[in-house]
């Protein structure tokens, strides 16, 4: 029998195929542990057919699409498994939408989307999905490190 790296969960979400080393950023995006009382387990550098990967399991929480978009920004190959009663009820790969609204802050300090005065959400056009490249809709700047800019 294969050694179990992470305990199976009864209900919740398993995020699989996170690029090795990025699990911590995924946790950050999900606001864990701050905004969550769910128990969370993380496996890093798990060996798989496609090389090393990270896995995150969150109990008693099903991710909403907005959170999935954010994950796609830093783990474009991740798959989301929704677990109900130990069974995989839904499984899908994260997918970056063509536009990202209100998730990433523009790295340009004089961009109008960073103005506190204006009734505006940040808005980015997705230039490439994997590896993710995004461009500010307003000032056209591309942030160098997307993970650092996630709101």
């Amino acid at each position, binding site marked *: 029998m294969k050694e179990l790296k992470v305990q199976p969960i009864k209900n919740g979400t398993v995020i699989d195929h996170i690029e090795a080393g990025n699990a911590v950023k995924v946790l950050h995006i999900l606001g864990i542990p701050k905004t969550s009382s769910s128990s969370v387990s993380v496996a890093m550098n798990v060996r798989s057919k496609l090389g090393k990967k990270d896995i995150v399991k969150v109990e008693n929480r099903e991710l909403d699409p907005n959170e999935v978009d954010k994950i796609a920004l830093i783990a474009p190959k991740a798959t989301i498994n929704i677990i109900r009663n130990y069974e995989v009820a839904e499984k899908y790969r994260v997918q970056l939408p063509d536009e990202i609204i209100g998730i990433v802050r523009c790295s*340009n300090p*004089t*961009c*109008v*989307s960073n*103005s506190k*005065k*204006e*009734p*505006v959400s940040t808005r980015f056009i997705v230039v490439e999905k994997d590896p993710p490249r995004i461009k*500010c*809709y*307003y*000032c*056209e*700047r*591309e942030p160098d490190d997307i993970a650092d800019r996630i709101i």
Partner: protein
Amino acid sequence: MNFKGKDIISIKDFSKKEINYILDYSKKMLDYARGEKYSDLLKGKLLSSLFFEPSTRTRLSFESAVNRLGGRVIGFADPAATSQKKGESLADTIRMADSYSDVIVVRHPQEGAARLAAEFADAPVLNAGDGAGRHPTQCLLDLFTIYTEKKRISKNKVVLLGDLKYGRTVHSLAYALSLYGAELTFVSPESLKMPKEVVQECKELGVEPKHTSSLEKAVKDADVLYVTRIQKERFPDAEEYNRVVGAYRVDVDLLKYAQDNLIIMHPLPRVNEIHPEVDKTPHAIYFKQAFNGVPVRMALLSLVLGVKK
């Protein structure tokens, strides 16, 4: 081709075909821009001219374009006198202007401001410069100048000189010239080199820009020399600034290396990048270039207002 209601925010929003159309239409506006013919094409149309930072040349050129075509202008030229100073948002100012007028011209210190303005206005918005960002009417008048002086844009050897890092006009111009497959040479001090994103854009359009620090060499077979201002505040000390400015000064000595049909352009205002003695030579085209802002803006205004002749 229908431009009615279209916003003019970035040159990148336009295809080469659309740019050609605008340039050809601008040509038809030349007689009206010179005041040799009169038209009331924009009669009954009201333009809001909102300059959140001053820019005399751009503002006057828009006002000349509207007035010469029988339209009228409301607005402000000095941000100190506006409600912005009292903390009003750009969005609210735009909503107000939108209800008062038929077309809006906006100049603003923040990048992306024109794109934001367009979201809050039903009327077409023309970007007259947003921060270090875009200035599409400047880009179009630059293209128009090359087009009218050289009869075509493609295949020209164009040298872009000066502050290529922060100079806002050169980024869009490098992109637009690449659309046409012009040959590009960038001449700048090391610290003010063309950003790699812009170089990448040129390459994606099939143009491989050359870089050199030798102005004499670059000028030799050039058709167009586009000069930009090098700002003092970009340099840590005055000595370094003076050295750089001296090395890239365009004067009659430099022109000994040039072809007879070289044209020299500059978005103006200039400080000392071009020696005044160059003004008298047939190479100097920068004042004509500034004038070209009028026919190009005439064309744009009538196109977005849908009152084309």
